[in-house]
């Protein structure tokens, strides 16, 4: 990454962090209903990956997907408005936090059934291959998803069909409240499975945006050359609990402390400083991100609620919901 690219990546990560913090506060104050699964701590995976992709590539994410939507161009305002059930939200308040989608930018959705989207990403890659478009597809998923059948079926299919797809595991050590190691037969839940599907795998520092970017760039190049899928296990950690107001008491204090000291924003900042980017430039990006998110919160708060009739739109491709004569 050039210093400019890294600075942009850093800015995007700060924007995501601020938005997640806002989502947390708004949930706590009752303005965000239902549930949230915050990605604070995971920013480098999304930003490192998407900065290595073409704008027309495809991305599939999980219910913990705010960072992926934003890394693919969803604005803080669109995201927060969706979380706050506003008509101006990314999905018109019909999806909510778990289903952020920005299809115009190739961000083909956030899925709340664990593992469901891995075969979809394989399918999008198959489509790219059939059309000869040179696009690639990426599925981001958690460590916990590696124990569901869809993960294994998708990996095998992608390997035997040599599909241009990357499977990116965000290994944050936990499923909801149970450590992944307690229920998994191998130490590296994703990477250790790849050999069974004859797929190259890499375990990387998911909190270092440069490492993520470079790994993804290599894997995407392989995929575009027709050399098939890659599995990437990005080690990371969530700063908040699993969802909602989960205080994450099941995580040992020393583990939390160790990971908090390896914050992806700090890692990126250190790299920027090492490249000679002046601290004022970085501070300026911080300020701009804060201002953008503050404005997004205000705009979302002022945005209208959805009209009741919206409940009966878009079941069908004609925009309606008719089911009988």
């Amino acid at each position, binding site marked *: 990454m050039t210093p400019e690219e890294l600075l942009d990546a850093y800015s995007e990560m700060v924007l995501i962090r601020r938005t997640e913090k806002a989502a947390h506060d708004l949930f706590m104050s009752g303005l965000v209903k239902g549930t949230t699964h915050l990605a604070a701590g995971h920013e480098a995976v999304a930003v490192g990956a998407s900065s290595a992709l073409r704008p027309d590539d495809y991305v599939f994410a999980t219910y913990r997907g705010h960072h992926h939507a934003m890394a693919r161009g969803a604005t803080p305002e669109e995201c927060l408005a969706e979380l706050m059930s506003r008509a101006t939200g990314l999905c018109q308040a019909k999806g909510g936090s778990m289903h952020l989608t920005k299809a115009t930018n190739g961000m083909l959705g956030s899925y709340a059934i664990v*593992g469901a989207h891995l075969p979809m990403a394989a399918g999008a890659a198959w489509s790219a291959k059939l059309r000869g478009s040179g696009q690639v597809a990426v599925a981001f998923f958690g460590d916990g998803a590696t124990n569901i059948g869809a993960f294994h079926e998708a990996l095998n299919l992608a390997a035997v069909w040599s599909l241009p797809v990357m499977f990116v595991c965000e290994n944050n050590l936990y499923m909801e409240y149970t450590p992944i190691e307690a229920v998994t037969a191998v130490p590296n839940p994703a990477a250790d499975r790849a050999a069974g599907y004859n797929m190259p795998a890499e375990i990387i520092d998911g909190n270092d945006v440069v490492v993520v970017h470079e790994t993804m760039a290599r894997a995407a190049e392989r995929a575009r050359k027709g050399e098939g899928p890659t599995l990437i296990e990005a080690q990371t950690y969530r700063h908040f609990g699993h969802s909602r107001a989960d205080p994450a008491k099941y995580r040992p204090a020393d583990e939390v402390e160790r990971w908090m000291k390896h914050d992806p924003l700090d890692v990126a900042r250190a790299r920027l400083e090492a490249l000679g980017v002046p601290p004022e430039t970085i501070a300026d990006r911080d300020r701009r991100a804060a201002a953008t998110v503050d404005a997004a919160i205000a705009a979302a708060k002022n945005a209208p609620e959805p009209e009741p009739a919206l409940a009966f739109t878009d079941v069908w491709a004609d925009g309606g919901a008719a089911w009988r004569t």
Partner: protein
Amino acid sequence: MADVTKAEKFTYRDAVAEGIAREMRRDPSVVCLGEDIGAAEGVFKTTVGLFKEFGPGRVWDTPISEQAIVGAAMGAAMTGMRPVAEIMFSDFLACCWDYLANEIPKARYMTGGQVTVPLVVRTANGGGLGFGAQHSQAVENWAFTVPGLKIVAPSTPADVVGLMSAAIRSDDPVVFFEHKALLAGSGPRPPEGHLIELGQAAVAREGTDVTVVALASTVPLSLKAADQLAGEGISVEVIDLRCLIPLDMRTVLRSLERTSRLVVVEENPYQGGWGGTVVSVVADEGFELLDAPIKRVAGANVPLPFADSLEAEVIPTVDKVTEAIRRLSAY
């Protein structure tokens, strides 16, 4: 066991754990498995205390592997255990549907009675909490399409306990729907040994003008509607089915002998909802009892939207139920 005191709050979610614990105490073949049910005590806190009391030998944390959870429960049930498997949200039943549609309900029948599958699949069902399209569905009608499954969906803490005991003791497979919107509600703790036979509806409120047939979340909803309408001089009888299979049509038909008017309130979609079957039995066997058309208040035929205001548009509400009853009683 806690003493029964007036101050004690016994919630629906407590009742789930209590119902399971009572059976685990009396029958060592009862074992539990599911995601986050052990040390974490369940994401809905419906397995609180089980891991502590019975230990990891009887309360097993699983990977996120719904097929393995239900498939293994089936294998264990075929070989002498009485597994209680948790599928965290009922929406995820789709991930292991082969076992619930093709394997578990057929095993006994297609082996000519050689194999018995005494298991319970428990799951958090239903909407009203703004969890969106993949975490809010009322899917009791999915199970209702499969002959060979018993289906329980209680509305009160005492019923949870009594029906849990019956479900675990049942030699037939049972799908046990715990309604998310009812978990925090409370009621009296039933005495030890409390057992409710599967397939017995309860008359939750007696009335003479209109019969309302309800299940799980729609029971409190219908009771509220009945309260409101009492003020307008309409006397509503509310029947809590408690189980969908066996379906207690006798209680429904008996009620119609007195009221001659029927409203069915179900949270699953109108399209394919269980109310359609209730209504068709009434049409077949109780046509002469009726003095008015039948009304179904059901989930709309759309996926569930996220925003609270939109969700209320598409699931049954007290207003929708009162409106339906008023119309019928004016017919």
